[in-house]
């Protein structure tokens, strides 16, 4: 595929902003794989500037801090999803896994189980469902869509088995994650935000600097070639779903802390928001190209649009239409880039 060729120099960040010139054209050609991500960044900046002009006081530390806080769970899910999508797979189960681990944790906490047991249990629960999907995909040749659909049904059903109603969380350790504010001037950060940012950092480093991360790209670029190169394809393909499941468990923890309760209907349709954010961040659904940092930008774009629309007091309907249109724009941009790259060969 054309995308594989661009992967090796993928991590090189542009240092100089591109100008429309001869230099700019070579820059675009050479860094075609980061272009969608830069486009997303440009869109983010444009939205922020537009909102600042329109509302007068939008871009301030409080709004931006809240942006990270409100979208921490989405960010964590997006990191896991990036791994899966770069291998050319898809994971529909993440929203349900988040709901299941969240309600499961709330139930255990309400029975007085220590948070030192509950939190690892959540992550293990997510990892287990991810492992199931990965094994189905790798060893039983089930398509990722169907395998993760089974995961979605399983996790959602289990969430309702745990409880049909929302369960309040009164555990001080879990609530601490949300209620603590570390102030840096007017900026603030919560432990949930730190977890989300750490997930991004770890995810980005693993993708770029570890053997496993490079194998993820190789599998997405061409599974057959990766196998012939002697890479551990099977292990990698199972592991990405486990990672996505772990992220689901982590997101369940963050969301439970954020909302102060577990609720079995949490995260219905979240998998689509996550996929949309990852795609907006420049990851190709065909696999082989994409960045964790791009997904961070994608989530920020998504979250900013959400905030802008709620500021405008517009209805939920517009949110959906705008996200849909944004998604369309990004896939068309990606399509153009891919077509141009193919033509050049």
């Amino acid at each position, binding site marked *: 595929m054309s995308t594989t060729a661009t992967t090796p120099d993928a991590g090189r960040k542009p240092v100089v902003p591109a100008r429309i010139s001869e230099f700019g054209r070579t820059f675009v050609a050479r860094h075609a794989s980061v272009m969608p991500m830069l486009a997303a960044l440009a869109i983010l900046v444009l939205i922020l500037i537009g909102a600042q002009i329109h509302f007068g006081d939008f871009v301030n530390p409080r709004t931006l801090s809240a942006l990270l806080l409100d979208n921490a769970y989405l960010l964590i899910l997006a990191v896991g999803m990036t791994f899966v999508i770069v291998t050319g797979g*898809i994971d529909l189960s993440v929203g349900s896994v988040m709901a299941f681990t969240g309600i499961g944790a709330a139930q255990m906490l309400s029975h007085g189980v220590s948070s030192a047991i509950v939190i690892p249990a959540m992550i293990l629960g997510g990892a287990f469902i991810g492992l199931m999907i990965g094994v189905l995909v790798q060893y039983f040749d089930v398509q990722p869509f*169907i395998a993760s659909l089974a995961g979605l049904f399983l996790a959602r*059903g289990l969430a*309702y088995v745990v409880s049909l109603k929302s369960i309040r969380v009164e555990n001080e350790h879990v609530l601490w994650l949300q209620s603590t504010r570390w102030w840096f001037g007017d900026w603030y950060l919560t432990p949930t935000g730190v977890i989300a940012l750490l997930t991004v950092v770890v995810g980005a480093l693993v993708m770029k600097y570890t053997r496993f991360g490079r194998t993820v790209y190789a599998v997405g670029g061409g599974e057959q070639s990766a196998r012939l190169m002697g890479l551990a394809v099977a292990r990698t393909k199972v592991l990405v779903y486990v990672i996505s499941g772990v992220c689901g468990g982590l997101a369940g923890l963050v969301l439970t802390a954020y909302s102060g309760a577990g609720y079995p209907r949490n995260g219905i349709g979240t998998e*689509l928001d996550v996929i949309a954010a990852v795609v907006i961040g420049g990851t190709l659904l065909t696999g082989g190209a994409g960045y964790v940092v791009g997904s961070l930008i994608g989530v920020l774009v998504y979250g900013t649009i959400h905030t802008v629309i709620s500021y405008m007091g517009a209805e*939920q*309907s517009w949110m*959906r239409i705008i996200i849909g249109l944004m998604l369309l724009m990004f896939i068309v941009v990606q399509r153009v880039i891919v077509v141009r790259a193919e033509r050049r060969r």
Partner: protein
Amino acid sequence: MSRLIKHHLFWPGFALVALVVLNTVVRPRFIEISVQHGALYGAPIDILRNSAPMMLVALGMTLVIATRGIDLSVGAVMAVSGAVALTIIDGSDSPGSVGTVLVAIAVGVGVSLILGVWNGFLVSVLKIQPIIATLVLMMAGRGVALLVTGGFITTVTSDPLKYVASGHLLGLPFALFIWVAAVVVVSLVERRTALGVLTEAVGINPEASRLAGVRATGIILGTYVLSGGLAGMAGIIYSSNIMAADANAAGELIELYAILAVVLGGTSLAGGKFSIAGTVIGVLIIQTLQSTILFLGVSSAQSPVFFAAVVVVVVLIQAPAVHRAARQFLQRRSTHVPDITRGTEVAR
């Protein structure tokens, strides 16, 4: 016997019969059909009636999947179609007249066809991956439906509309006639003309079929238009059933159930060969399972666990790795021949 087992409809058919037998054994009343006011009533009739929306959606999905595609937007299209049709009926002077309802249904389905053209254009002309191309409409569609209804749940009172989902014709539910007609027409067009073979050719190898002179673009576009139109009709039936347009709940998760039905019916998500009869059986399995789960007293919210189990069992039955293991197991039991295939297995 072995030819029977090899038949592609054996396992889906077996599953459906097993479900029905199981239900009848546990609850003999399940199979009872009574006649009231010249119409048939009973659990099997309910299943046939309630299948209508999923059947229409799954029918379109079968062809889309045969071309290696997938249509995630069907639920959103249902919401739009229902919203458009009920808004027209709600705004008209005579919501009870047959003419108004026919116009409303025509406009609702017409809009759905246009949405289908949109999906087909993205997939066949712009060559965007189907899953993401239809995701656009899946996200935006419900927003459009909410705009049409103004964010409310539009309710209407209209007898002709009510007839679509709840009426009876010749003692049988009218909705049953709708889906049977759709299945028959689509089957005839696909199987009595070359269209079905061409569709499979596009799904098996798009590039080769193009070189062989198959107009892949038109065929792919057509399947998405059909899928959109059928989803539109499904949206009308859904709205008629509850006599309201609910932009959020209409067709919620139906894309997943429809895909599940298609896969249960033996059509591979990898495209190519498709079986409309298989899809019909797949939908009936899901509806029967839902009715079973309801009877067992499991909260409908918890039913996904059962579906997860069914999906896993079905995909495992179809998985090549399981077939190999089963063959080896049977061979070893019968002949005690040392396993010579093991070597190739490791090499893979």
